[in-house]
């Protein structure tokens, strides 16, 4: 399969909001190293699951490849086009092909607009439809995501969380994109509604031939929807590979800890993490995970581990695992 999206060495550093005192004292802001050289490939037609805990940079990654946040350096190539080099007009055109679904269905819809206005806006902005055709496409999209035509004239607050998420999905898909970033699309929903949205996303992917980057902290959901997964820790990818292989036989100690922490597997024989997540402003040297890893050695504390390719299209960034490299 060919790569639809190829990200190389993506870096995003930003200055956090500074406190008044430190500004008065003239302290230099320390940079948050949200993404630290991330390379990933997303193949046409697949769902790549991106797992990681809060603050690991997974949402920043999703926004950086769409240039909703400008990356500091690196390259993002989408179907041969260098996304980071696009001028505003070309970027606008590119947005038709790359879309995003947000986590919070309560915050991602403008409360002052009706559903019809929300869904018509993308088509209007790109001059794709007007008049009766526009109405028709809005209606068709509503039906596609399981909403009724009568819902078009309502405002977002008149819907439940699950229905709002359907509206958010409709807005992203009405431009017929090829690639969609799903940023925690079910995390804010009730359990029984989560399944509805997961099913909907799967059906739309089949029907429209979409490619997804599915970002979530819920490992079971990631395992269910993804063809391949990538595991992120403190702005770096520590492991990638086919979803089942990685989730059922994790190699990186961090992935192992994540898998064993998932509830439902019994509370015994957990791989425990030491201490707390280090600050992304002051990441540890060497392997970024060494401060919490039970297997860390001096090598881990001093040297950044190489990304080692394993059999079965897998990659692990660890000095010690797997113990017998292929």
């Amino acid at each position, binding site marked *: 399969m060919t790569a639809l999206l190829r990200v190389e060495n993506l870096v995003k550093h930003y200055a956090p909001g500074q406190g008044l005192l430190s500004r008065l004292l003239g302290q230099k802001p320390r940079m948050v190293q949200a993404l630290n050289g991330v390379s990933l490939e997303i193949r046409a037609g697949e769902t790549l699951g991106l797992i990681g805990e809060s603050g690991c940079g997974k949402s920043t990654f999703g926004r950086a490849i769409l240039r909703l946040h400008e990356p500091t350096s690196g390259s993002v190539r989408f179907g041969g086009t260098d996304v980071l080099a696009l001028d505003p007009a070309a970027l606008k055109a590119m947005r038709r092909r790359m879309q995003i679904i947000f986590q919070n269905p309560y915050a991602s819809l403008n409360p002052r607009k009706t559903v019809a206005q929300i869904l018509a806006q993308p088509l209007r902005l790109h001059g794709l439809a007007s008049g009766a055709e526009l109405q028709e496409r809005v209606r068709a999209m509503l039906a596609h995501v399981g909403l009724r035509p009568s819902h078009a004239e309502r405002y977002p607050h008149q819907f*439940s969380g699950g229905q709002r998420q359907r509206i958010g999905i409709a807005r992203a898909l009405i431009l017929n994109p090829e690639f969609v970033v799903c940023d925690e699309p079910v995390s804010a929903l009730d359990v029984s509604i989560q399944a509805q949205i*997961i099913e909907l996303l799967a059906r739309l992917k089949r029907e429209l031939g979409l490619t997804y980057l599915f970002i979530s902290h819920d490992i079971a959901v990631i395992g269910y929807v993804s063809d391949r997964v990538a595991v992120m820790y403190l702005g770096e990818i520590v492991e990638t590979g086919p979803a089942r292989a990685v989730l059922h036989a994790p190699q990186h100690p961090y992935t192992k800890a994540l898998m064993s922490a998932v*509830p*439902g*597997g019994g509370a015994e024989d957990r791989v425990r993490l030491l201490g707390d997540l280090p600050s992304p402003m002051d990441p540890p040297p060497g392997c970024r995970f060494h401060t919490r890893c039970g297997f860390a050695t001096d090598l881990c504390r001093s040297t950044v581990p190489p990304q080692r390719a394993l059999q079965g299209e897998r990659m692990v960034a660890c000095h010690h695992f797997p113990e017998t490299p292929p």
Partner: protein
Amino acid sequence: MTEPLLEITDLRVAFHARHGKVRAVDGVSLTVAPGECLGIVGESGSGKSVTFAAVMGLIRPPGRIEAGRIRFAGRDLVGLDAASYRQLRGRDIAMTLQDAQTSLNPALTVGTQIIEVLAAHGEGNARARAVEMMTMVGIPAAERRLGDYPHQFSGGMRQRMMVAIALSCRPKLLIADEPTTALDVTIQAQVLELIASIRAKLGMSVVLITHDLGVVADYCDRVAVMYAGQIVEAGRTADIIGSPRHPYTEGLLASVPDLHNLDRPIRPIEGQVPDLIDLPPGCRFLPRCPKARPDCAKPVPMRAVGEGRNVRCVLT
């Protein structure tokens, strides 16, 4: 069987809203035995948090306990005066809230906040005990960190601090309301294991309110599943997760992906939670139930099916 520590009988709590009466808890009965861990599972609007807010005496207007009894260690809690409740809260029953970020006062040091609770309940050497509790929940260098403010703690540490404060007076019952929802899985595991180990050490009872059946499976002896203000199924955890009898429990189990069995397809529950103002007289799950029959439209009582197991469904 021993006398239950907590016994709730036919509890009804309603909130008076502008457009009608919201029946948030509608006839809930349950017991918690000493030393037991009971899981309460339900989605938003199921009444799981309101039920235990009632136990804590935290229902305020426009909310009202309309009927029912809450007995804790031989005492009736409904109608208890404010002073007695203050005595009870913290010392005998403690509660940790969902959001540790906002439950700690940002303007006070964590030391002040835990020592305050200990002193209020007449603990002699409050400072030493605070350090002991913080060490127990796994806060390193506790002595030194007493002077820290909540923002200097990570999310997981704040949650553990909440647990330390909740447990500082050795309560008989800990109510943990969604203790892990805001946390990442690795920290979630830490907090749950902490609660489990302290429960074993102190012999206290725990009520774990959650929407995550996996959490229940790992930590709870018994579980009660709530839907739209009622318990629809209750019993031993292994029985309920292994062979659910109520279609809602079945639906809930089928709708979450299982990491250990990714080949099982997930099956969503269609439709939405009913409006608690405008409830159907019969089974509340009826509009979403794939197995609905005509007699489901009549009120459905809770029925005993086997040892310690109850189901609210005409099919059983």
